[in-house]
């Protein structure tokens, strides 16, 4: 298997987000951005299982996945400067993002269905947040993927909040459904992000 961007280390990812944050705070980016922090090692480890031929689907926060999927840093930074941070997609690198809650999920499922139908060896990795994981369409996708044993893995990135809303408090539970699920298509990890939901903390919130 041809692995991707194995040379990227945690500090590379951190430095990239800091560079984007600086560009945003200095007014060079005239569009909303969504930044990661605190999950670098976890993502690097997940991407050890993702090859060049596999597909990656993300939400509005996807800079790290783009870099780890092999999108050149310069191309990615240029796209962000053009205002595409919240829906970065690079078809040639098989990565797609949606800025709409759950938007990427059924599209990822469709790619997985097509892969299985055509007996391809490709795999699909679909990233989503903890609040998104509770939506009806996410639950349906989890169930369908497991029932038909589709070549897809859902990665729930649990930072406990949606924008500023506490996911568990809002649903009135201590544990969300994916935490108690035995669905083998789902993996999860927890992290805490130093950046706010949108922006880099020094400029007007989107």
């Amino acid at each position, binding site marked *: 298997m041809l692995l991707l961007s194995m040379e990227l280390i945690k500090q590379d990812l951190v430095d990239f987000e800091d560079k984007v944050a600086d560009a945003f705070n200095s007014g060079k980016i005239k569009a909303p951005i969504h930044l990661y922090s605190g999950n670098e090692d976890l993502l690097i480890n997940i991407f050890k299982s993702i090859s060049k031929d596999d597909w990656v689907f993300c939400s509005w926060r996807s800079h790290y996945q783009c870099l780890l999927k092999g999108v050149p840093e310069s191309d990615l930074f240029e796209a962000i400067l053009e205002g595409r941070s919240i829906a970065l997609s690079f078809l040639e690198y098989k990565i797609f993002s949606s800025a*709409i809650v759950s938007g990427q999920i*059924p*599209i990822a499922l*469709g*790619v997985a*269905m*097509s*892969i299985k*139908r055509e007996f391809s060896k490709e795999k699909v990795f679909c990233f989503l947040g903890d609040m998104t994981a509770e939506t009806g369409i996410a639950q*349906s996708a989890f169930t369908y993927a497991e029932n038909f044993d589709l070549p897809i893995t859902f990665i729930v990135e649990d930072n406990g909040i949606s924008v500023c809303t506490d996911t568990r408090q809002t649903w009135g539970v201590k544990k969300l459904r994916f935490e108690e699920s035995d669905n083998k298509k789902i993996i999860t990890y927890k992290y805490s992000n130093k950046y706010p939901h949108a922006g880099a903390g020094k400029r007007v919130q989107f």
Partner: protein
Amino acid sequence: MQELVSEFNFKMGIYQAELKRAMNYLSANSKVIFLGQAVAFPGTAMTTTLEDIDKNKLIEMPVEEDLQMGVATGMAMHGLVPVSIFPRWNFMLLAVNQIVNHLDKLQELLNVKVPPKVIIRTGIGSLKPLDPGPQHKGDYTTAFKAMCNKIEIVRLDSSDMIFPSYKRALEREDGISTIIVEWSDKYYE
């Protein structure tokens, strides 16, 4: 089940025959696949237009319209030409997110000149022999034309529009997706 089947056991008119011819034409393309509700199982008048198609090309989907529509877009991204079937406009309203926010924006999102395309088939509910009421007979052609900038929307007002519309939707090479709308009442003509 017997009653459901017999409900659609009427003499085929030219409108329905043309729809069946168009579906058979689409199915001859190895990349085309059909998905939706009452696609592999009987249940609607549309089903009767798919009865000659290889069962391997018919994917019955759970009733969750936005999921179905996103699945179709994903299949298109992987190289297939999906025909996503919604028996009524009213049902397809539940797929607005995937149609308006994703499929219609695919060229811009993917930053490509020719995005993957989907063919969407839907219908205006019939008034005869039973009037299904306000939730089953809507025609949102004008509204969707206003919401979608990149998707072509064609309403099949006459039977001679059917085959050319589907042929164009399949053969066009500009990546434009097409919503093709039929009149359920014309099946009886």
